[in-house]
């Protein structure tokens, strides 16, 4: 049975607030201040406010300890560019850069990203709309079909070059193997990465 009669559970202020309103506070809170605040709090399963730098903007948001980074991005911040493909760290669709390192945001607890810098696919293009070279190379090389794994592939591809693991095609293939593509765009993904790597070197 529904715990509460349906007619009393109309979309209401409290739930809307929980989902969309009060939890997102665009603020200028310093990262250090946020970190200190978290450390002072007693261990608890209740939601708490954390601060992250997401795509260059400091964001304060309310999360439970169990909230994963990808849930915080998608459900709390409404940034749905990052995709969930398995929610178990097995597919790489949720890859974001956390303090410059590519990680699976579905296995990262948001509370553990307190004070971190997060870059998602939404943070790549210039404010004036110019695509990041990796985005442009993916488009040009048809490095996707359905596009669902693409945000994660692109974040991973950028990191692959930054880490120095794009030396040759075999190395790119190995170091892009944490991102499944069910459509089978792998050769085109490698071609896109080679193109960006070469343009950066040239």
């Amino acid at each position, binding site marked *: 049975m529904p715990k509460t009669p349906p007619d009393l559970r109309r979309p209401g202020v409290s739930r809307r607030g929980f989902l969309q309103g009060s939890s997102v506070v665009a603020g200028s809170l310093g990262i250090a201040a946020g970190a200190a605040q978290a450390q002072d709090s007693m261990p608890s399963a209740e939601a708490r406010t954390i601060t992250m730098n997401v795509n260059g903007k400091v964001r304060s948001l309310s999360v439970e300890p169990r909230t994963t980074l990808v849930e915080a991005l998608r*459900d709390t911040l409404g940034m*749905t560019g990052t*995709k969930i*493909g398995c929610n178990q760290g*097995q597919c790489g669709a949720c890859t974001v850069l956390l303090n410059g390192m590519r990680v699976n945001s579905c296995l990262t607890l948001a509370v553990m990203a307190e004070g971190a810098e997060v870059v998602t696919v939404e943070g790549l293009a210039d404010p004036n709309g110019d695509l990041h070279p990796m985005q442009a190379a993916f488009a040009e090389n048809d490095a*996707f079909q359905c*596009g*669902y794994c693409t945000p994660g592939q692109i974040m991973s591809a950028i990191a692959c070059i930054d880490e120095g693991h794009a030396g040759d095609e075999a190395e790119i293939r190995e170091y892009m193997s944490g991102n499944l593509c069910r*459509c089978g*765009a792998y050769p085109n993904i490698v071609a896109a990465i080679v193109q960006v790597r070469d343009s950066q070197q040239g």
Partner: protein
Amino acid sequence: MAQTINTEVTRTDARRKVTGTATYAADETPSGMLHGALVCSAIAVGQVTAIDTSAAESEPGVVAVFTHETLPDYKTVKGFYAGGPGSSSFWPMEGTDIRYAGQPVAYVVAETAAAARRGADLVNVTYQEADGSIHMDPEDSFVVGAGEDSEGMVLTKGDLQAGLDEAAQTVDMTFTTPFQHHNPMEMFSATAEWRGDRLTVWMPSQSVRTLRHGIAGAYGLPETSVRVISPFVGGAFGSKAGITPYAMLTIAAAKGVGAPVRLIVTRPQMYTVATFRPESRQQFRLGADAQGRLTAFEHVEIAQTPQFGEIVNPGTHITRAMYACPNIHTEQRLARSDTNSGGFMRAPNEMQTFFGLESAMDELAWKLGMDPVELRRVNDTMTHPTEDVPFSSRSLMESYDAVSNSFGWDQRGREIGSMTDGDWLVGYGCATATYPTNILASNARVRAQGTGNAYVELAAHDVGTGTYTIMAQIAAARLGLPVEAVDVVMGEADLPVAPISGGSTTAASAGSAVHDACVKIAQQLATQISGMSEGPLSGVDPSRITLDDGTLRGPDGQSQSVMEALQMIPEGEIEVVGTFRHPALTDQLIKATFSGGYGTAGPVTPEFAMFAFGAEMVEVRIHKYTHEIRVPRIHSAFAAGTWLNRKTAHSQLMGGMIWGISSALHEVTETDKPRSRFLNANIAEYLVPVNADIREVRVEMLEEQDDYVNPLGVKGIGEIGIVGTAAAIGNAIYHATGKRLTALPMTISDVLST
């Protein structure tokens, strides 16, 4: 005007996909939305005897827990294979029956996804368990349908035994293929929002109209009261075509709580709440004379089906179209086991059946001492072997010749085990691919504006196939516009009728409707401008004005561009609905498509047999110590009529070939037999290739003209890429090792001691 057809065009939705702004169904969050979670059964067969929801209901954030007893206004539909829109003909949560493991038994609604999932963990279900079997017993099989020869399920031509008796060489081989799951990267989801009697559903779909028709019918609502929205689909491969129980449960739950509800099915649950590729057994007996000409051809396919439905994807209909032979016998059989309904998964029968057929052909070539390519050549035919009609076009041997050249087939060692490279054994293998050209009715609305724009609208889908782009290309080519000047709107049920995106049909059928709309625009324009007092085509008999890709041409060399002509008419634009009604489409088939079903004609019509063809060659390497099987090279050539977009078509064919590698070497849904469960229900242990598995992939796209299939001359290419791959790999393994592998996938444990 740059060429827009048969060239490489970057996807029109590329920018949205690389910036994360392409909106997949689960990216939509209606105001006040709650989150759903499924509770799935721990047993495979039996009864639910009790469900204790108290702990779940006490969990913070949980709003409601619905069971078969408490879910209000839950509706079901008939299954696809029984002529309905459903993914299954058995519906969970209608009562206490459990028919398969992982069947939904309760539905939790909560304020967050995490709370919903936790609530689902806390629902305590008690069962009475009965015996079941997840695997079919092939010895207990039956022919589909009532009659001996229902719809060609059993077919006999000539005298099979006589053909075997007269053969110089015969093969008698049985192959098996496992359960497989589509595993699109996008998880299944459904979001439902009721506003009074109006319902909106966001759900990744290969057929928004099937969804709308079925849902509206189930609730007794006019179709205008139901919106189904699916602008982007994160891969489907057959898994997102029908109305699933999880969708209907979500629709009912949203009604029950009086708020929008979104369900994201977990990856493990994706293995049981929708369809899959049924396991199968493929039995072949072939006979050939000393020159390799087939004298006997027998194929018996036994495919798994659930206890409550008959899932038949008739593979024998395709294998018997392949090679000339006077004596043919085929049987399409099913055997039951305790699973949810299987369905269609990319090349739904061709993957399995061509693994068998093309492995058996390879074995026959070795027995005959023939080059396997030559064996295909002597058995090539321009007439359908059992239907007595010519192929509308068939470029099989052209494909073999092209791929042989690309691959370097002449470098293949003659003997088994004759090729090595360091610690690797090397083998080459080849196989034939084919896919039927299925025909469906379609409409499309096109509005062309003299300002240099056009709008194309139809209820088709881009499941990653490039449909947005090719629809724009077709309109752009016909109207003389750049591709980026054409806006394409799809993925909504309200749009003009287009078929299910399945069976490699969208480009051919829906594309032909777009083409037809442009032709109609030209005809209307011709009538209007020929009646005007000025202009290059003034006074010309409009019936003699033709459309030549962007230009209207009169009989005497007069011409005017479509855009200029549009500027001349007072409206400045024309909007029409184009149609595609191939002569082979009966009224009944058209009616089926227009009511949300799959009204397909072909591949055999009274005049022609319509198939695309191709050939694949692979190099396989098997490591001396790890016995790992790798595919460093896979080449192919395909002929499938007109290529609309060489870039996206290449991606589709390549993706299909990679699916073939996956089926050959990786994919299997393992089972726990005592408890009748799928065992590796995740995407770590259910292996699909990673980037490192895929090395050189080369695709030759041959030119082929076929004026019969449709006005565009397009055959489908979504599935053919997968068809020959598994056999080509198995044949290469044989060439490398002398081991003939007959079960998919082919893994390390199969090639030990080599």
